């Protein structure tokens, strides 16, 4: 079994710590991509030639950050609090588009770290940010990280559907947070409609970061069932 994991906007590879430990226990090979928002350099990922199912596991904007050839060759995809199109069309998306524009402005100014902290609080809610794994807000934001966050915010605002190379024949598990304050219900519904054959799970009482000790065993159990 090979796994490639990708974090979402304002995340980094350290967020996969609990998953990596679970993969090692199972003898699976895992790689975690990193966009390089924080002090860690960008980390690209690629499938190994070895046999065995190839599984992508991605949080939020993560699938859009992966190279299309990686997605294309996946046998299964786990989408955690993710989306195809982030901003719904029409009037309902207008408020969200304004919020994203305001975040982009703040990123360019002195309030960037405050904005990121507020974003993570909403992403973690209803749980506390103290339950989040170590991530980029714990360190000062560098110029390159700031630039990538800004570029990706624009990409995120312009997402129109499933990312290029998405393997529509692959087995898919969609996990949603019942209290997600980041991905609006319409965007979640669009993803479900785009992948009607997917297994779908809505976890009650957790938000966008899906902070539950039950998540990793549940996802790993689903992946084991692929074999």
């Amino acid at each position: 079994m090979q796994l490639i994991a990708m974090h979402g906007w304002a995340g980094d590879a350290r967020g996969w710590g609990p998953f990596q430990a679970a993969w090692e226990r199972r003898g699976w090979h895992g790689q975690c991509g990193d966009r390089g928002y924080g002090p860690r350099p960008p980390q690209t990922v690629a499938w190994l030639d070895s046999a065995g199912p190839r599984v992508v596991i991605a949080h939020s904007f993560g699938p859009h950050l992966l190279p299309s050839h990686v997605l294309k060759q996946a046998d299964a995809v786990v989408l955690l609090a993710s989306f195809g199109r982030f901003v719904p069309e029409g009037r309902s998306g207008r408020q969200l588009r304004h919020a994203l524009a305001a975040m982009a402005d703040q990123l360019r100014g002195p309030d960037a770290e405050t904005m990121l902290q507020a974003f993570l609080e909403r992403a973690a809610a209803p749980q506390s940010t103290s339950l989040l794994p170590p991530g980029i807000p714990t360190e000062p934001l560098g110029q390159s990280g700031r630039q990538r966050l800004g570029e990706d915010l624009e990409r995120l605002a312009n997402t129109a559907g499933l990312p290029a190379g998405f393997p529509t024949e692959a087995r898919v598990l969609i996990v949603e947070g019942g209290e997600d304050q980041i991905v609006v219900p319409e965007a979640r519904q669009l993803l479900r409609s785009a992948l009607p054959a997917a297994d779908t799970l809505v976890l009650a009482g957790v938000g966008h970061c899906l902070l539950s000790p039950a998540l990793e065993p549940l996802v790993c159990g689903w992946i084991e069932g692929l074999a």
Partner: protein
Amino acid sequence: MSWRAPLADDLEQLPADQRRQPRSWRPSGEAGLQSTAPGSPPLLDLASNDYLGLAAHPALVETASQAMQREGVGAGASRLVSGGRSVHEQLETALAAWLQRERVLLFPSGFQANLAAVQALADRHTLVLADRLIHHSLLVGVRASGARLQRFAHNQLDALELRLQQARRDQPQRRLLVISESLFSMEGTSPKVSELGELCHRHGAALLLDEAHALGVLGPGGRGLGHGHGSIAMVSGTFGKAFGSGGAFLAGNGLVGEWLLQSSGAFRYTTALAPALAAGALAGLAQMQANPTTSTALLARAKRWRDGLEAAGWPRPPGTGPILPLVVGSDRATLTLQQDLEAAGLLTVAIRPPTVPEGTARLRLVLRHDLPEGSLERLLAALGAPPCN
């Protein structure tokens, strides 16, 4: 007189064949249990309340194990001292969202949760109207509250309404509490919860609904028969049954939750639920959400079993859930049947008076989601013809 004498007297009056002896078991194969006594064969489990077969599910075992590694075995103190863990809050938040109740509080056991629930909703000025067959823990709660107790015939809402009318005529301002269960553990029966809630609302009575056996099995997505009924003041549930873990909870609105937090001795003065059990319950809840059709499949199977037993000449077990009481009649015949089934590899439990009325001794058959195909046929073959045939 020695303090020992009353205990000895009590025990002397208990006939030898009515004395209970605990046995020890270990999980064995598919939906199986094996006695730890030397040479005991594995038995098909038709006795436990592990309705969804989650207690040994790998995801629960892994989640609980990781929690134990992180947090230690015990919480070490009560929630209001230093025993609170983030997993407690995560479980309370998840349950509140799942059940659509404002507040959930965890307890180490269902017995304790029920004591706390009754004491929150009743005091010595209260009249409690309780179904005749409610669980012992609820009766102990009523006794501890000092409230006056009246019992109504099992699931007879007409009888309850008469008592409510009478109570309101006698003392219009009196605090009233109605207690029932959504799935009675020895009868397999359920009240009409919607009508029960409406009745209580009409008469200004609080309703406490014990959903210990229904959660995970009955109601939309296994959320219990009280789900969506705002007229219920408090729901009591356990993690030791369908959730596959241990511990319990109370769910209600913000007011009752805050009262419990500030005033309930059963919540405040007890060591917090072991973190691994809380994590296991969270994993059990996640399994229920991931597999919402499991409960409906279990109920479909329960219907096939009821049909099969009836077709074989046995009285149709009442209810629709996974608890199927098979009324045999006499104590002796029921015990003999239990032993015959055990010899045939099937574990069931004989329920005898005083737990049930004289002449209605029964085998309590419990379905698990993970029973292998052919289990009903094995049971019917082992049961043979009903005693009256």
